[in-house]
């Protein structure tokens, strides 16, 4: 009695899912066996009918109901902003907003530093006026008075030298006159503030840029 092919082989043959050896076996068998050929034909008809069944249309209200449940703004046709700008436009807008936020932050820091400097100037002028002395310009420093208060500074004779810096730090000595200490300490303090402002800005930008990508 002649054996017949298993249905799963015939079915996989239709789907082209047989290995070479099985494929040769099936093709050889159906060329000789009319019963298996008929079964294969019947299965092909079924597959053909199944594949002709049209896909049902997605209900038009489905997108909106999902968006509502998920708490999203889009309904049919996508979010309004997306429709207006497209994906590239949306990405550009997002980058611009982030850049604006960074710029605003940097400007804020600069403004704070400027305000701090102005307040320091005003405070110094007030104290000088109260002491009855004119506000001297930096080159007009009284080196003799400095020498009396901080000998290291006058001995060096170079206000920008390391010794000078030490002298300035020494100016924090509570014995020193408040007016002159302010004068000496003020200039580097401002430079330092300015540097901090720039470094802070750069650091802010460096920290923010990866997040924008």
């Amino acid at each position, binding site marked *: 009695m002649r054996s017949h092919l298993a249905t799963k082989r015939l079915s996989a043959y239709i789907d082209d899912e047989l290995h070479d050896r099985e494929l040769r076996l099936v093709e050889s068998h159906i060329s000789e066996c009319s019963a298996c050929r008929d079964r294969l034909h019947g299965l092909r008809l079924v597959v053909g009918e199944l594949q002709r069944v049209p896909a*049902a249309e*997605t209900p038009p209200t489905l997108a909106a109901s999902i968006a509502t449940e998920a708490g999203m703004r889009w309904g049919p046709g*996508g979010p309004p902003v997306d429709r207006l700008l497209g994906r590239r436009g949306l990405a550009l807008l997002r980058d611009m907003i982030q850049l604006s936020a960074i710029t605003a932050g940097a400007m804020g820091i600069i403004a704070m530093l400027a305000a701090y400097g102005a307040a320091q100037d005003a405070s110094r002028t007030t104290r000088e006026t109260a002491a009855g002395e004119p506000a001297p310009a930096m080159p007009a420093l009284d080196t003799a008075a400095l020498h009396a208060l901080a000998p290291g500074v006058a001995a060096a004779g170079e206000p920008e030298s390391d010794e000078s810096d030490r002298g300035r730090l020494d100016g924090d000595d509570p014995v020193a006159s408040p007016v002159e200490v302010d004068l000496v300490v003020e200039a580097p303090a401002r430079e330092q503030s300015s540097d901090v402002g720039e470094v802070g800005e750069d650091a802010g930008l460096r920290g923010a840029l990866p997040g924008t990508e």
Partner: protein
Amino acid sequence: MSASQALAPPLTATRDWDLADRHRYGDESAFRELYDRFAPMVYNLCLRLSGDPSRAQDLSQEVFLRVFKGLPRYRGGSSLKTWIYSIALNHCRGRLGRRGLELTDWNEEDWSRGPADPARGPEGDLLARDGERRVAAALLTLPVRFREAVVLRDLEGLSYEEIAAVLRVRTGTVRSRIARGRERLRHLLESKA
């Protein structure tokens, strides 16, 4: 396969990951894109498993909400298509139960909602639709495990490997289930002819 599916660009692993990543970072257009791509597939699967358009809509909504919540955890281990099919299938099984899946009230009018084919003409279209309804009704009488496999293969067009990933069974099991499902359909349709 519908025309929109045929026109859609193939989803590579990179694109799947990109879509999930954009969703993870709050880009709502990513989920919209995902919906547009997979809604027909999810809805049709729900319809073919539940047999009820209204129920299929509810099921589809629930499936997409699960996808919405789960997408941030998607790591690209399988394709997004397979991943979403798994969610849809498991959700339908859970919501409908074995009895709900097998004992379905079937309204033939609801099955064929596709556009009429002008090339067939009115009479040909009527006959074709009648045949489609007959097949669809017969499909619903199949045991769930065969129906799932046949629907995924012959109506959704998944490969054996994809079906194995969705059903979490071996490829040999997929082959067997598809074959048995088709064989039963063949008997059913021949007996009605």
